[in-house]
Structure formats: C-alpha cells, structure tokens
C-alpha cells in the first residue's frame, strides 16, 4: 500500500506568501477580504487554516491554487511566482466537483485526457499511470465502485474519489477547501486517518482549510488562525503531536489545551465574544 509512488519524480514544494491582499470591489463599497498576508509553508508540511467565516481562508487558498487573483502581494511556489492554476497545485473542493457523467475510475484518470499530462509521455508512463490509478483506487477503498457513477456513491466515497483524482497527477502541493465539511462525524474521522496516511506516503505539501478546530489540530503540524474584517493571519500554533496520529490523542490534555486556546482566539477575533456576552445578559434578565 505504500507503493503509490512508483516512479519517484515528485518532490514536495514549499509555498511562500508575501504581502498578499485581496480587495473585492463592489458598487456599494469595497471589502478587504485579505490584508497583507505573510505565510510560509515548508515542503512536505501539513498546514491547516482555521478561522470564523468571512476571514478569507477560502479566498487565500483559491489564490494559492490560482483560481483567483490577488490585488497585491505574491505567492511563490519553490521560489517561482505562481500565476494562475498549475499542475503542481491540485485542489479538492467541498463538493460537486466530480464529473457525474464519468465513472469513478474515469474521474480519477481524467487528467490523462489533458494535454498538460500527455506531453512527452511514453508507453511505460501510460502503464505506470494505470497502475497508479489502481493503487489510488485501492488505498481509497474504492475498488468495488470503480465502474459506478458518482451519484451512486455516499458523500464520503465521493470525496475519496475527488481526492484520488486530485492526487493522480502527483501534485507537489495539495490544497483542500473544507473537503469534509459536508460529511458526518464518523466518516470524517476515517477520512482524517486516510489523509494522514496519504500525507505520509505521497510526500506532498498540504494546505487544508476548515472551520473545525479539532480537525485542524488532528491533521496538521501547524495551525494557522485567521481573523475577519479585514481577513488576516492572527496567530500560528505548532501542534505538539507525533507524526503518527491516533484518535486517542484527541483526548490528551495537550490536544484539549490547544483546542481551547485556538477556539478562544477565534471567538475573540470574530466578534463572537460580544454576541455571547449579549446572550448571557439576556439569560440573566430572563432568570430574574
């Protein structure tokens, strides 16, 4: 199962974000979605980004993925400015990104239809690719559904297929935009361990956006907390957990301590604290 990297051509790439800003201009006035973001992600690092809604975490990821343009600042991938989408940065979305007219296997192999992945390949490459698709299928537990259409799969299975499709061309960087946001809690836990496994095997850099703090800590080696209005990096926490994660770690005091600290930060920066304060006063009033 650890043989997903038959020809080891991939080398994880690092990301350097410097002075990045994004302003959405609208007739009613412009909003600063991101203000002066500086963030470095090392090659083969797993970083998660959390924050209240509106903090710009998804926008940041989309800019790194080349799906949106920044207003100013720069994203460099291994020192080279990244403009527009590139085959080195794969992206997994929350949902609806699989192609419903293709079977699971055809979805996973979709990149083989694109010129960007066909240039200069030999017949042995084609063979290796088909071997890789099979390997991805099996590590994702999708073997029995290879010929099924996405609408025949559960949400969790669909996301597995979407991840397999993103990994197929051996991206050096994997960008994940709340990929498990629509899944139930049990399925999510399984997906977490699957992602950690893939991270160990595939040697890619992963940037993972989520609103679930526990998920953020469990997966990453560093958690970036973003704050809204204007969207900015508030703080960065190193996760004091070993490389191999297990579910019991979620109950360890240092895990819970970190979770509390991060949740507190998010509440403080998002204005949620004042909302809670108002609620508390209302409850007190009602009690009298």
């Amino acid at each position, binding site marked *: 199962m650890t043989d997903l990297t038959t020809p080891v051509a991939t080398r994880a790439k690092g990301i350097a974000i410097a002075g990045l800003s994004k302003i959405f201009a609208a007739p009613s006035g412009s909003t600063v979605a991101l203000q002066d973001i500086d963030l470095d992600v090392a090659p083969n690092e797993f970083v998660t980004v959390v924050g209240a809604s509106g903090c710009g975490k998804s926008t940041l990821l989309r800019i790194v*993925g*080349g*799906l949106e343009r920044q207003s100013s600042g720069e994203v460099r991938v291994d020192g080279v400015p990244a403009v527009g*989408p*590139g*085959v080195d*940065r*794969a*992206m997994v*979305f929350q*949902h*609806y*990104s*699989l*192609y*419903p*007219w*293709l079977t699971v296997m055809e979805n996973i192999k*979709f*990149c083989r*239809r*694109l*010129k*960007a*992945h066909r240039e200069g390949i030999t017949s042995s490459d084609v063979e290796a690719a088909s071997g890789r698709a099979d390997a991805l299928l099996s590590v994702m537990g999708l073997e029995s559904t290879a010929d099924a*259409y*996405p*609408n*025949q799969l559960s949400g969790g299975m669909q996301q597995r297929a*979407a991840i397999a*499709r*993103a990994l197929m*061309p051996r991206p050096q960087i994997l*960008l994940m935009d709340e990929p498990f946001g629509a899944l139930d809690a049990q399925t999510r836990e399984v997906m977490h361990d699957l992602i950690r496994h893939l991270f160990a095997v595939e040697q890619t850099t992963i940037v993972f956006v989520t609103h679930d703090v526990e998920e953020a800590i469990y997966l990453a080696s560093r958690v970036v907390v973003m704050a809204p209005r204007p969207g900015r990096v508030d703080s960065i926490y190193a996760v004091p957990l070993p490389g191999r994660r297990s579910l019991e770690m979620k109950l360890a005091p240092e895990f819970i301590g970190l979770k509390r600290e991060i949740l507190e930060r998010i509440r403080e920066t998002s204005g949620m604290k004042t909302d809670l304060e108002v609620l508390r006063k209302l409850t007190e009033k009602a009690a009298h």
Partner: protein
Amino acid sequence: MLMRGARTVPSIAKPRSIPPTQSPLWTLRGSITRRWYWAFAVAGLVIPLTMWWLLSASGWVNKIFMPSPADVVIRLGTWWTRDGLLQDFWISIYRVTVGWLLSAVIALPLGLLIGSYRPIQAFFEPLTDFVRYMPAVAFIPLVMLWIGIDESSKIAIIFIGTFFQLVLMAAEDIRRVPMQQIEAAQTMGAARGEILTLVVLESAKPALLDTLRVTMGWAWTYLVVAELVAANSGLGYAILKAQRFLQTDKIFAGILLIGAIGLAMDQAFRALHRRAFPWLHTK
C-alpha cells in the same frame, strides 16, 4: 442483547404508529406502484375520449361541429387511401426537421460561446432577447416577400420561431454547469478549449438535449402556422383546406395526428436521453 434492551423500554416510550386513515396514493409527493400509475394514465386518456364519444353520440351537438371518434378514424382512413395522407405527413416532417436542425446547428455552438464568454454574451444576448419577443408569425409576410412561397419559406419560419429561443436556452444550460466542475479541471491543468469540450459541453449535454426536445415541440407549432398561411401541401395545409369544405372530421384527424407525432418525438427524445446519459438514470 440488543433485543432484550429494546424489550425493557417502558411501554410509554413505544412510538405510536400513525393510524392508516390516509391512503398511500394521496400522500403529498408520495410514490405509487407502476400499476397504479398506468391505471391513472389510461383513465386520463380514456375518460375524455369517452366523453367526446358520448357527446357526439347523444346528438346534442351538430356533426358539422363535433364529429364522433368513429368519423375521425374513418376520415383518417380515406385521407390515407385517397387524399395522400402520407405525402402531407412526410412533407411536414421534412420541414420541421430541416428548420429545427438548421436552427440547432447554429444555435448550439453560439449558445456554448454566449454561455462561456462574457463579451460574446454582452454582444449577442440583448439582441437575441429582443428578437425573441418579436412574434415569429409576424415575420411570415416578410419571409414570403423575401424568400417566396417555396419550401425554404416554411423552413425559414420554423427557423425564426425556434432559433432565438434555442440560443438563449442553450446559453443558460451552459451557464448552469457548476463552477466547481470547471475549477476542478483548471486545477488539473486543463486548457480553455479542453475545459469547453471535456467539461462544459459534457456536463451540459443532458440539459441541451432537453432544450432540443422542447424546441422541437415549438417547431411543430410554427410548422402549422407556416402551412396554414403559405403552403399547398402538408398537415397544416390539409387542416386549412378541410375547414373550407367543412370537413370537421378531417380537422380533428389532422390535429390529433400532429399531437400523436409530437408525442412520439417527445418519447423518442426521452428514450435517447436514457440511452445517452445512463449516469442520470442509475441509482
């Protein structure tokens, strides 16, 4: 173990079953068996037919205004044997098919471009939106003046009637392709042309086929209009001629025949849909 646990639940907590006062047939958005479905479908056809038959048999209505179903069937027979039903049938099918195909061949690529590129949308859409509201029927005198009264004028009217609608509907189908599908391809390194052919077009195909099915129905409407005004053959023309000779049964036969052709074509499109897009019909 589980069973025993379940049994120890006090009887108060036992969920009360809903009394079966309501027939499952009349549940809001409920599901019914195939047999029930067909029973209702047949009833929906047979009841109006019976009422028609009763009305004409009762003698309340003059036969000139309301022929009996039997009259219509007999007329259909004589039309077939003596009055060249087949010629009328084929010439009408020919006009509809050519007019509709011509508009589809131009409208689909145009719709793809309008739905994909904003400048092209800005260029064409207001114009198309405007022309769409001009009644196609009102173009008939102009078409006759410009093209004459041969086959091409009928085809032109069908073209005018369906083309502008088809462009806008196709563009809308293209625009409905989820952005996530396009972005997924972008992050896999797909070029613009590849996204259009491998993703957008593939994704929109079922909706486009539905749009073609709907516009085919409109093409029949415009055919009859064109033949009523400017033809000397075809089903629409036969209906008009029948009116001049007070052959109400032939008018009925013609209308029913066009309805039947429309229904058959619609079903053919639906069968094609199931065939071409198995992923939409599997669960």
